[in-house]
């Protein structure tokens, strides 16, 4: 089955990203195909490389980056949500006159159309959030 995931909560505060990660990993290991992972609302905070969680805890951001590398996942941060919350890649930083970017490896920033497209193209779109 071809599936997509929407994550609508940030890391650590909420379990959404953890559960979405475990679900996605299990589904991929089971041979299913992931069309896209879309991060919305505070979910875009899952895509900052500046997070430094304690050594003895899981690193939610790096974990997504590693899974993306292994399975060539398309991790998309919503541009409007990212702008509000200070998540930027080099292009976005330049466009908005910021002196730094902070996007983590394996993520990209794009529009909400990517979420709609995921709904159209996938057999199932699963939301993780409140």
């Amino acid at each position, binding site marked *: 089955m071809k599936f997509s995931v*929407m994550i*609508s909560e940030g890391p650590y505060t909420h379990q959404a990203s953890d559960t979405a990660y475990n679900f996605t990993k299990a589904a991929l290991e089971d041979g299913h195909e992931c069309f896209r992972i879309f991060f*919305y*609302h505070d979910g875009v905070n899952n895509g900052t490389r500046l997070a430094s969680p304690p050594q003895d805890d899981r690193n939610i951001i790096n974990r997504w980056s590693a899974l993306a590398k292994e399975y060539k996942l398309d991790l998309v941060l919503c541009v*409007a*949500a990212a702008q509000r919350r200070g998540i930027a890649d080099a292009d976005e930083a330049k466009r908005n006159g910021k002196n730094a970017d902070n996007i983590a490896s394996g993520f990209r920033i794009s*529009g*909400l*159309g990517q*979420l*709609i*497209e995921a*709904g*159209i*193209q996938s057999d199932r*779109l699963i*939301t993780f*959030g*409140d």
Partner: protein
Amino acid sequence: MPETKKFLYVNRKAPYGTIYALESLEVVLIGAAFEQDVSLAFLDDGVYQITKGQNTKDIGMKNFSPTYKALGDYDVNKIYVEQESLDARGLTLDDLLPLTWEDEDDDWAEKESIKVISAAEMAKIMEQSDVVFSF
């Protein structure tokens, strides 16, 4: 582009206090360009999103409720409101924004977009939808 799918946007939270309602509306407006079969559902505190007379002056937030009135122009004209959620909050249809659309197949007659339905009917609409976004 594959076949048209039935998209349902479920709005369950109050308009202010959290950003979900505003960012849900942003998805609906972007999604309208994709020519899918779109419905909106308002239940729980989500019914407050489309109440009349919203005034956000004292909380320093943007009152985005006028945007709902534009939905008809985007061909978003199936708006379902759960009766039980209205009842629980002492609201009636009269408390909601007059959301309308113009039917081009009926000489551009102005028609009501809002339909108040029961929780059981709402369940059926969810069941019949292909893609359900919950905000």
